[in-house]
Each structure stands twice: as C-alpha cells, then as structure tokens.
C-alpha cells in the first residue's frame, strides 16, 4: 500500500489526518455547497443580496415545490427517464452480443471492427452532428424521444462494446471449451455461461450508461426542440434563462437534475467505480 499506512497505534495522528482530508473536501465541494445554500434561501433574501449568510428561514422544501409547480422540470424529468431507461437496456443487449463475438470469435477483421468501436467512441459529437440531425429530420424522428434513444444507443454501444469485450475476454478460455465440449450452442453458451458471469459487469455498465445518457446536453439541444420531449439537462439551461433572478429556484432545479445520477452513484458506488476503472483500465 502506498502511501505508507498511518500507524494504527497513533489514533491522534489518524484523527488529524481525517480532519485534514475533510477540510480539503469542503474546499473541493465548495461550489456545490454554495448551490445548496442558495437553494435553501427565500426569494426575499436573494432579492436583498444576502447570498452567503445562513438562511433566516430554511426554504429548501418550498423551493423544490416551486420547481415542480411553476416550472416544467417534472416534465423534463419524465422525458429524461423515457429516453434514458430504454437506451440503457438496449445498450446492454447490443454490447453483450458484440462484446461476446469480438472476445470469443477469431474472424478476419475482428481487430478492425473492435478498433472502430473503440476509436468511434472517442469522437466528439460535433463531428457527426450534421448527418445525424439530417437523418433524424428526413425519417421524421426529429424532436421525438426515439431520435435521442437511437442516437444514444448507437453511440454508447461503442464504449459498452469495449467494456464487455474486455470483460468477456478475461474469462478463461477453457470455460468456453468446456461448454462447447458439452454441446452448448453459441446462444446457449451466451445465455447460460456468459450472461450469468457478466452480471456484475452488466450492473456497472448499466449505471455508467445511465449517467452518460442522463447527463447528455448536446444531443438534447440538437435533436429536440419542444418541451414535451426535452430532457432535464436542456430543461435546466432553459430554466436558467427564464428565471434569471430567482437564483433559489434555479439552484433547487440544479440539485434536482443532479439527484438521479448522484443517488445512483451512492447506491451502486462499487459497481460504478469498478465499471469506470475496469472499463477504462482494461481498454
């Protein structure tokens, strides 16, 4: 272990160290605390320019209620769910299939296909913006959920394939030989051997993909227009324009947008980090 572990027999030193780290953490998250503070204030305080004082009246709940009642955030939130959940599901299905084939079948061009998936997943969105937008317009999907779902599934399949391929390739070869020797077909091998063993990896991939898709902003503004379809990220930016001086409301809405990914992260922290590091590190 590096750095050298703090000595067990010096509790004071250990305590001080934790205190020091906590201090750094507070500085690190200061911007976020500022938002929380603002989200807890009343409109009056904001108007009076009292941004950094302790809230006279703790108004967080009311501000959240105002976000739901007076803005369309709840609608955006539902839109985000409608876009994100099917995308995650389809990405898992497709990438398990592609990853399995790329990990276990040695066909000509395997490396090339894999390189395309890996390389393509690094491309900035703007490179493919015009043709994708044009495609969605011409098939009549522009400004629908489906446009975003299709794009996200296509794009995330790149990273997810890299991820699944590396995980499946790490399984021992003899496991697959054993399955084959026992008469399992490719599909049976996938279903009875690969998928059960990939469960933790799939969980990790699911929350990663969820976060990526949920947090997307660019495609939300390129492929949608109407409030009926827009996800929260685009909604939040709109809201900021409309409620310029009501910082307490904007702050509450900002926290609201952050809630699902942050909650996901804390609930499945182990999977999230394993996914991020394994997916990346093994690549």
């Amino acid at each position, binding site marked *: 272990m590096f750095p050298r572990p703090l000595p067990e027999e010096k509790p004071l030193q250990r305590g001080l160290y934790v205190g020091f780290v906590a201090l750094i953490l507070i500085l690190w998250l200061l911007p976020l605390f500022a938002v929380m503070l603002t989200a807890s204030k009343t409109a009056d305080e904001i108007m009076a320019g009292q941004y950094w004082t302790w809230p006279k009246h703790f108004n967080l709940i009311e501000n959240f209620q105002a976000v739901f009642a007076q803005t369309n955030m709840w609608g955006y939130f539902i839109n985000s769910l409608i876009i994100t959940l099917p995308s995650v599901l389809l990405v898992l299905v497709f990438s398990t299939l592609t990853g399995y084939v790329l990990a276990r079948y040695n066909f000509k061009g395997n490396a090339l296909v894999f390189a395309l998936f890996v390389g393509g997943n690094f491309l900035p969105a703007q490179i493919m913006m015009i043709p994708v937008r044009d495609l969605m317009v011409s098939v009549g999907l522009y400004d629908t959920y489906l446009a975003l779902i299709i794009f996200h599934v296509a794009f995330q399949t790149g990273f997810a394939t890299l991820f699944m391929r590396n995980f499946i390739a790490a399984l021992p070869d*003899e*496991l697959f030989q*054993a*399955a*084959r*020797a*026992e*008469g399992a077909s490719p599909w049976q091998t996938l279903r009875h051997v690969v998928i059960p063993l990939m469960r933790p990896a799939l969980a990790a991939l699911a929350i990663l993909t969820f976060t990526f898709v949920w947090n997307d902003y660019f495609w939300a503004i390129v492929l949608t227009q109407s409030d009926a379809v827009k996800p929260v990220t685009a909604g939040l930016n709109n809201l900021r324009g409309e409620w310029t001086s009501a910082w307490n409301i904007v702050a509450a809405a900002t926290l609201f947008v952050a809630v699902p990914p942050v909650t996901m992260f804390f609930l499945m922290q182990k999977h999230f980090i394993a996914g991020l590091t394994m997916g990346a590190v093994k690549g």
Partner: protein
Amino acid sequence: MSHVRLIDIDKYYGSYHALKSVNLTVDKGEFIVMVGPSGCGKSTTLKSIAGLEAISSGEIWINGRNVTREEPGDRGIAMVFQSYALYPHMTVAENMGFGLKMAKRPQAEIDVAVKRAAEILRITDQLDKRPKELSGGQRQRVAIGRAITRSPEVFLFDEPLSNLDAALRTQMRVELTTLHQQLGSTMIYVTHDQVEAMTMASRIVVFNKGVIEQQGAPLELYHNPVNQFVAGFLGAPRINFVAATLVNLRDGVAEVALEGASTVHVPVADTAGLTNGAKLTLGVRPEALKIGDVPDAALSFDAQVRLVEQLGRETVLYVDAGPLAAIGSESGTHNFTVQLGTAAPYAAGQSIKVSARAADLYLFAPDGKAVNRPKLIAASL
C-alpha cells in the same frame, strides 16, 4: 475393436505446423496416455479429437463414425481440463448436469445421472456447493463427475492433475486408475509428467514436436526406446548419454571408443548405415550403473562423487568422470547420475569405480535411432 482413430492428422496454426501426420488407433477400454515436453502438440491432439480445434487435414473416427466435421457436443466425448473449467456461477450439481441440460434432457434424468456420478466420486454431500467453496481435489472430482454424467464414449483428460499438490496428485492417480477399471471406458489422457504416464497407461504415446515418436506399453517403451528422445524422456533420474565413436563392427558387436574410458563392446541388432568412425551416442540408465567391480562389465570408469542425495530407500550420486563427459546431464556439468537401490554411505569427494553390463547399454545412431535393444538382446544371449 478400434474405438478412436486418427488418420493422417495435420494441424497448422497459421504457418506453424503443430501436428505432423499423426496416426493413432485406440481400442475400446484402453487407457492411453500421451506424453511429451510442453509445446509438443499433446493438447492440440486432444482438442482435435474433441472438435475444439478444427484440423487442417486428416480424419477422425469415433466409435465407427467419421466425426471430423461434427460439433464437439455430438462426438460422444467428454473432456476434463487442467483448470477444471467449472462454471463458477453454478452449483456442483448444475455444473455436472449442464451437458445434459444443453441436450434438453428431462430434469429427472439429469438428476439421476448427476447422482450416480456423484456417488462414484463420493461428492454427494457437495452437490449444492459452488466451485469456489471446494478444495482443489474436490473441484477436480467435480470436473471428472461432469464428464461421467454425460456417459461419453471417450473421456479426454488434459493434464488434469497438474494443478494439484504432490500428495493429492498421487491419490488422484490411483483414483483415476480405479475409475477406469470401474467404468471400462476409453480414456485418452495428456500429461507431461512421465510418472503419471508410466503408472496409469495401458499404452503410452510419446509426442515430440508434433509427431508421435513411439507408442507401446509403459515398460516396453522404457526398455526398448526406438530413439534417443524417448530414452531421454522416460525415466527419472534421466538416462546418461555419452559421445561414442564406432571403431569396429563385427559379428553383431559394435566396438565403440569413449573419451577417457576403455573401448566398449555393445551387441547391435540393426547395423544398417553404420560405418567405422560414425559419431554415436551411448546411453546408460542411472540404475544400471553399479559401483565397484562388476563381473563381465562392459563399461567401467573412475569417478569422483560430487553430490549425494539420500532418499532413504535409495541413493542418487552425481559423479564426475573427468574426460568421460556425459551429454546434457542434470546439473549441466559433466556429471553422471548413479542410482543405487539401497541407502549407501557415500560422501562427496570420494573416489569410486563405476561399471555397467553390456546388456544395459543403449546405442544410438547419429540420427538418434536406436541401433540396439539391450533387454531383447540380453534375453537372446
């Protein structure tokens, strides 16, 4: 009746020629052990029989059927892998029943088969555990049980014991032999461990660089190796080789000169291609070397003890014979290995005389082919 036949099998990995025209016939109920140094193509041969590797040319027959183009699952084989290859997410019972489940057999039938196999291997009380809760030996049993459950025509084993510790390996060796007697099935077993080969096989097949060097009963191979490779591969401690020059060949006896020892007379069966002056190799097994004067000794030389290994019932001496240089001996120096069947009070530094009888000497032609078969000749003398 031939049960498994390999006819002119060739296998290429890209441009690498892994199997070169391999022919092998296995009878029903035989226990065949394929041995050879690592990388010689044993696993490739086994996987070709299983259908896990497609062969480049040749035919494979199992139980009277040409299975060359068939899927592994349809060939009537079961395979046990070195790493056991148990499915970590399944219980022992599920692991053992997996093959039958894939064949869509009714659950009741699977249960019966699993139970029967578990009883044979005495793992009935482990059936609900997962592989990672088992010890190495137990996992090995499950892997074998998984093979038994499918009641295959042929069992294939790829170094199944090499991940076990020495004590367990000895025990499993006995159990596998017992299992073979109990089931009477055809078994093909790959190992690089010659002790496993010698003790388990009804027939040994020695591989080297993708070709079969020799096959036969263990003792037959031990006593009558067809070439220098087989002589060198079987037997521990390893056989001693010395460079020898053919001086004279008369009446079926070769007279060979050794550096630093008197001329040796060796009876020869096959004199084809031998001319005076040919560079030959003389072989003598460590246990054939005796210390002191032996009546009618054909080879004898003076040596100094370098190292003594006392193994209790036997003693192994590493001796230095000066100019008489053994080729590629164990420690890499010019040493002979002498194995004595008793506890003998030798010490390093001691000077001794080492001898061997003519009947215990092997002679190999420049191309490695054996030119005499010492035991057979000994019998006919």
